[in-house]
């Protein structure tokens, strides 16, 4: 009898409740069902975010129709890079760096400890590229020509933007392939899941190669502005600084986003994973602290190498010191202390400080330390419409992330049939 009972339990556990999609009609029926909102719609987050998003979409349409000038942006010939490039694109890409770092740790170094958060991280990276790097459309004056570097109408192989465009495009494809097994599991497509699962490792290797190149490739834009960027920030090694900083920027984002996800989507995560999560945070904090330690010394060496030490005793110098001490060295030791004491609150706080530091660093390159000799009254300040459009892009990404996590096996366990494939 006991044996019969155990068998029944095993059958119940492995019951396949995946959708049975056999044709296009089944797919549409399933998709329509999934598109319907779940739970209470009138939450405080929805009520605040929805009006901002709608307003942002209206401004986006207005910007695409009317161009980049006032009143939409405060950009001009002296300050061609503003909030959209500085925050949405350059900072957004640094924050998305967690995906390639974690993929390297999990798939190449085989640190299985981090496997539990790999899907959420890859999804976060993919959406970051889709929305933030996608926001590059807003920054291109003749945005309707954006496909030219892809189709060869005008490749523009001498332009840094050619490199950036192709890297972004290929990396988004690589991340989509990495995430595609989750989509196949959601759709219940077993055969497709098997094929896509076999592509993961190749996509990961390809994605890591692309990431190391385009994280630094973005900095090539800054290299062209030698006479405009303050000597404390300008160096021919900006690409290396961007690449190294993307390691701890991305992992800080993983800590920040993961901590929020664990609270918001806590019901989807099993108890074992909850307990295991502190170990993951401690491991990530260790990686962050060592990367930041190296980055700090790189900054010091370049300070000497570029003969920029005399500039330290100036207002811009104090701003530079605040960036590298307050937002690099301090969180570096906070991460180290948090990892040593296994104090997750310190680790989370250090992640937030690091993220603020990365935002400051990237904005320094795009408009704060850029044209630094211009009087404050003539400096660039983001226009209200720029801020609202940026907020709407971030909120749309959060909505997309929430929709996917609530439907696909991102944080929750994959279906039994998919687990058997491992």
């Amino acid at each position: 009898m006991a044996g019969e009972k155990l068998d029944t339990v095993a059958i119940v556990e492995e019951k396949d409740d995946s959708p049975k999609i056999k044709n296009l009609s089944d797919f549409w029926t399933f998709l329509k069902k999934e598109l319907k909102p779940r739970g209470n719609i009138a939450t405080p987050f929805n009520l605040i975010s929805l009006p901002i998003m709608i307003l942002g979409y209206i401004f986006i349409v207005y910007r695409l129709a009317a161009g980049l000038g006032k009143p939409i942006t405060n950009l001009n010939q002296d300050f061609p890079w503003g909030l959209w490039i500085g925050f949405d694109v350059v900072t957004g890409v640094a924050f998305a760096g967690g995906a390639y770092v974690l993929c390297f740790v999990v798939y190449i170094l085989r640190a299985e400890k981090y496997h539990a958060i790999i899907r959420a991280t890859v999804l976060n990276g993919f959406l970051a590229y889709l929305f933030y790097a996608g926001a590059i459309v807003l920054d291109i004056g003749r945005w309707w020509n954006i496909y030219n570097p892809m189709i060869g109408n005008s490749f523009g192989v001498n332009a840094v933007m050619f490199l950036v465009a192709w890297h972004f495009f290929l990396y988004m494809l690589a991340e989509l392939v990495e995430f595609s097994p989750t989509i196949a599991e959601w759709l219940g497509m077993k055969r497709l899941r098997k094929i896509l699962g076999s592509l993961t490792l190749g996509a990961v290797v390809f994605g890591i190669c692309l990431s190391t190149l385009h994280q630094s490739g973005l900095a090539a834009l800054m290299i062209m502005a030698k006479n405009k960027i303050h000597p404390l920030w300008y160096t021919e090694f900006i690409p290396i600084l961007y690449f190294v900083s993307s390691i701890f920027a991305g992992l800080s984002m993983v800590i920040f986003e993961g901590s929020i996800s664990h609270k918001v989507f806590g019901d989807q995560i099993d108890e074992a994973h909850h307990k295991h999560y502190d170990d993951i945070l401690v491991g990530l904090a260790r990686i962050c602290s060592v990367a930041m330690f190296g980055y700090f010394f790189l900054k010091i060496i370049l300070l000497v190498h570029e003969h920029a030490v005399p500039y330290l005793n100036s207002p811009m110098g104090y701003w530079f010191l605040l960036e590298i001490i307050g937002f690099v060295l301090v969180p570096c030791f906070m991460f180290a202390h948090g990892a040593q004491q296994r104090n997750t609150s310190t680790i989370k706080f250090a992640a937030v400080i690091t993220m603020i530091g990365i935002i400051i660093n990237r904005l320094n390159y795009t408009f704060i330390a850029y044209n630094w000799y211009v009087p404050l009254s003539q400096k660039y300040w983001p226009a209200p419409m720029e801020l609202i459009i940026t907020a709407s892009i971030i909120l749309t990404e959060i909505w997309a992330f929430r929709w996917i996590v609530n439907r696909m096996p991102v944080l929750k366990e994959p279906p039994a049939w998919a687990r058997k494939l491992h």
Partner: protein
Amino acid sequence: MEELFTYTDIFATKGVEYLIIIAFFILIVAFWGLVNMRPQ
């Protein structure tokens, strides 16, 4: 005439860079120990 030129002693400058790198290699060992130290 002399003040019109700024002489940079490249060897002295490189020396500082080497010293920073040596300091980094020494300190990274201590830092690694700190990060991996068992909690009290």
